[in-house]
């Protein structure tokens, strides 16, 4: 138990004095900083509750910085966090609008806290370490951003065409065999695979449910509690505070490969030799409107830039980045909130976006899989239903004496089933506005469906018993509508990969989960056929000095 006149620091008074001198150099009240660091230490030891910490320092912080966004006491007491998460969050409570207060508070507490062994504080005094320690990246730091890029991937829409893999390879100039995005077919006892002699195996519907291929699409999961980051001896592998992307700083990585060892998903690819694309050639590869490769390879941080994107240089680790140069707007505003693989995927199986935003595609698709599937399908050009008529078209086409049959005849692409699903979507929709955030296409399309149905109903009443029956919507209740949608799109399971390992992945899957004994099998498209290499070891072995073919430990 430390009392006020005792040194709080294990190294004793002298060290503490030194810290105090360091604090004096910063522009704010050093006593406050020291006292807060001491109390933070006590919180981590459990001698002080977080609520008490805030109670105690609220006024002083207000006085010093003029703001204190303190969460409620209840919220704090509810959260029982480990020491470091606690410390980081406690600081956050003082966060002002632009994060200024947080930085200043950190500046103050940082010196003391770094010394008491709380990594999350670290030193934020001006210097080369500043950016690194502030973004120094440990899992808990993402908690306070309201952006977390991630994906919801519909495995039953994936037809194994490998387009996402080639798109990723091109976008990032990856060497052969460096498959940041990896798509595989698999089977296990409960999920039989494709049998020789049958056709392509891809069912003719837009859903792969009837296909005999079970697919798995495997990017990096950008885990919230990423083991790869935890083990990294250099902080090269880090989580970007502002959006939760797990990235590798190619300028810091020493190539120890511990991240590859610790990641349970096997998504890391080391750059064993000189990459095949020269750095200078990175922007030229495509029609990108940038002046230098740096704009594609360097991502934006609170404190400047770090080289984290595109293929890695020799001797360091690489993996799927979820395209930070797009998220930062370096490739144009229209690409914010998208990824190369998402854009490329023909059946729209990949929904990329902010998984914390209720209106985002991945969120909607995860929470309302059947409805979202229906919406995606209704408005997808890829499908044979090829879009829904706009309200204007409907206004110009229908007249009030139409009934369902006659109305449908007036539209080339509209059949009874499509209308039925549109009405069902309208019935279950809670009409949430999509907002103007990036990548809210599912809600936007849902609105289009609802608007079309509304326009349609100006002319034809779809709520009469007869109409409901005709549209196979049961009793016309929301429940029956949901059931109708499920008949149409299926009701997929959702899961996260290896949830038991505790990584908190940010990719959610819809579809069948591979069991523990699942084995990869040959998929509908061969890797070689689209110019990809599956077994990188074959290429690496060619360069091995004095290796013996076919012999393995």
């Amino acid at each position, binding site marked *: 138990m430390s009392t006020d006149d005792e040194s709080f620091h294990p190294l004793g008074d002298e060290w503490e004095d030194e810290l105090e001198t360091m604090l004096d150099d910063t522009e704010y009240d050093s006593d406050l900083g020291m006292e807060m660091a001491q109390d933070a230490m006590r919180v981590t030891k459990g001698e002080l509750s977080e609520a008490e910490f805030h109670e105690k320092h609220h006024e002083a912080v207000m006085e010093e910085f003029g703001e204190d966004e303190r969460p409620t006491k209840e919220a704090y007491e509810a959260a029982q966090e480990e020491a470091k998460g606690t410390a980081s969050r406690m600081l956050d409570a003082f966060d002002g609008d632009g994060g200024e207060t947080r930085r200043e508070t950190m500046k103050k507490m940082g010196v003391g806290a770094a010394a008491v062994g709380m990594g999350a504080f670290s030193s934020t005094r001006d210097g080369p370490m500043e950016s*690194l320690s502030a973004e*120094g990246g440990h899992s808990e730091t993402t908690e306070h951003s309201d952006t977390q890029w991630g994906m919801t991937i519909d495995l039953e829409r994936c037809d194994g065409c490998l387009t996402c893999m080639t798109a990723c390879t091109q976008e990032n100039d990856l060497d052969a065999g460096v498959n940041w995005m990896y798509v595989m077919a698999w089977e296990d006892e409960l999920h039989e695979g494709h049998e020789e002699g049958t056709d392509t195996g891809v069912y003719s519907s837009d859903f792969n449910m009837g296909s005999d291929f079970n697919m798995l699409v495997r990017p990096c999961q950008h885990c919230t509690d990423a*083991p790869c980051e935890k083990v990294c*001896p250099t902080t*090269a592998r880090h989580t970007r505070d502002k959006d939760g992307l797990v990235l590798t700083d190619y300028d810091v990585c020493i190539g*120890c490969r511990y991240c590859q060892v610790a990641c349970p998903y096997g998504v890391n690819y080391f750059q*064993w030799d000189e990459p095949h694309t020269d750095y200078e050639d990175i922007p030229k590869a495509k029609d990108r409107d940038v002046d230098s490769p740096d704009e594609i390879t360097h991502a934006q941080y609170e404190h400047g830039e770090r080289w984290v994107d595109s293929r890695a240089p020799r001797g360091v680790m690489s993996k799927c980045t979820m395209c930070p140069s797009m998220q930062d707007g370096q490739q144009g505003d229209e690409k914010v909130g998208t990824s190369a693989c998402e854009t490329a995927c023909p059946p729209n199986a990949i929904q990329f976006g902010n998984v914390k935003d209720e209106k985002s595609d991945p969120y909607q698709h995860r929470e309302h899989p059947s409805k979202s599937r229906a919406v995606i399908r209704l408005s997808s050009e890829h499908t044979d239903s090829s879009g829904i008529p706009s309200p204007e078209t409907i206004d110009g086409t229908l007249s009030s004496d139409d009934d369902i049959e006659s109305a449908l005849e007036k539209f080339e692409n509209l059949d009874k089933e499509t209308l039925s699903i549109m009405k069902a979507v309208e019935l279950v929709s809670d009409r949430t506005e999509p907002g103007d955030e990036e990548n809210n296409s599912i809600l936007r399309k849902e609105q289009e469906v609802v608007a079309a149905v509304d326009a349609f109903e100006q002319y034809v009443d779809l709520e009469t018993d007869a109409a409901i029956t005709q549209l196979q919507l049961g009793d016309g209740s929301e429940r029956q509508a949901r059931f109708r949608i499920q008949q149409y799109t299926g009701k997929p399971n959702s899961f996260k990969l290896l949830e038991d*390992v505790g990584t908190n992945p940010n990719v959610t899957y819809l579809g069948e989960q591979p069991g523990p004994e699942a084995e990869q099998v040959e998929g509908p498209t061969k890797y070689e056929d689209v110019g990809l290499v599956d077994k990188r070891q074959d290429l690496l072995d060619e360069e*091995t000095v004095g290796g013996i073919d076919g012999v*393995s430990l």
Partner: protein
Amino acid sequence: MSTKEPSEADILRPINTLTKKYFLVYGIAAIGLLAFIVAWGYQLQKGLVVTGLGDWGSGGGSTWGLYIGAFIWWVGVAHGGIILSAAVRLLGMDRYMPIARLAEMTTIGGLSAAGFYIIVHMGRPDRMVTSIIGHYHITVNNSPLVWDVTVITAYFVLSATYLGLTLRYDVNRLRDDLPDMFEPIYKIMTIGYTKREDEVIQRMVWWLAAAVIIMAPLLLHGGVIPWLFALLPAMPAWTGAIQGPMFLSIALMSAISGVIIISYGFRRAYDWDHIITDDIFRGLLLWLGFFTLLFLWFQLQAVFNGIFLGPLDKAHAAEAKIAHPLYRIAIGLIFASLVYIFAQGIRPALFSKKRALVVSCAVLMGTLTEKVLFVVEGFMDPHFNIYANTPGSYFPSAIEWLSLVGTTALVVLLFLNLSKLVPVVELHAIEHLRGEHEHSEEATEPEVEA
């Protein structure tokens, strides 16, 4: 015991003689080290692609291999060495005093080799200082690799201090018989030496030894080093609480074997039959047997845990392990060694130093093989075992094999150099053998029963 009286001249002999054989061994070792340095230069130039390593997962390779296996093996030798020497000092096992310094030097050699491996293994060794030290205050909270580097550095400092302190006594007393050529070094070593410090140093060394013994299971090879692997849920072949004791037993086996081989070499080269006596070899062999038994017991625990109703991932890893021919050979070698050790314990006539040498070599081969396999096994049967290319393939490249030659040569050179500079057998040991030593009457070494 031999009838010859051990003398100062005996322990000074390596310093004051220069034989053809010495040059020969020195030359061979230098060539070995040089060969590896050239090969490493090539690796630096081309990248790690020259090794047999690869990406586990869709790529079908092994992320770590011989470099890391040999790294933990050398760390084991080093840690075992210092534990051995600490035990001699702490428990007053005066019988082993003549080899205590050899064990300490083994530690320095082992740690040097291990440190070398860390650098050789990395993709960007040039960033070692900036990237690791620069972020140390953050990473030390999380990364087992940083813990490793920390304890290895700490133990290097500890062992060097330990060795340095005990050398002051000897160098000061034997100064007149030491070559003038190294005078500056001796001056630095004995800076500020007075006879009065002997007692203080004795006490300091005792405390250092106590620290080593206490921390060995907690922080050294029984803790931090296995945690590099045992904490990761991704690789069932590595996980489990048994890895701590397992690593510690391997460390002690390897170190004892190493010390037997080195002692054998010195005894032969300098006619030290009366200093490193048969008795020491017999004793060391029994200790080796004891730790080998522990090792086999831990292996049994680890494997049986997997194959009886293990969770699937663990079961696959354990099945693959016992099915591996090299694993069987390694365990077979170690088991055969154990059988011999116990047999010679019961029938002393079976003992010979040559046999002790053979057994030591067998155990070292066995532990090295086990270590490398252990590392590779992780990548062959991971928890997420869906990839068609996993288990992949890995076979060390010529450069990786050469690293074993290089690091062994490094350690040999270290011994050859040190033996020309300072006595490798303590003066205390000679005094003790002559019965002059103040503590000799209280020699309380517990006899090891077979």
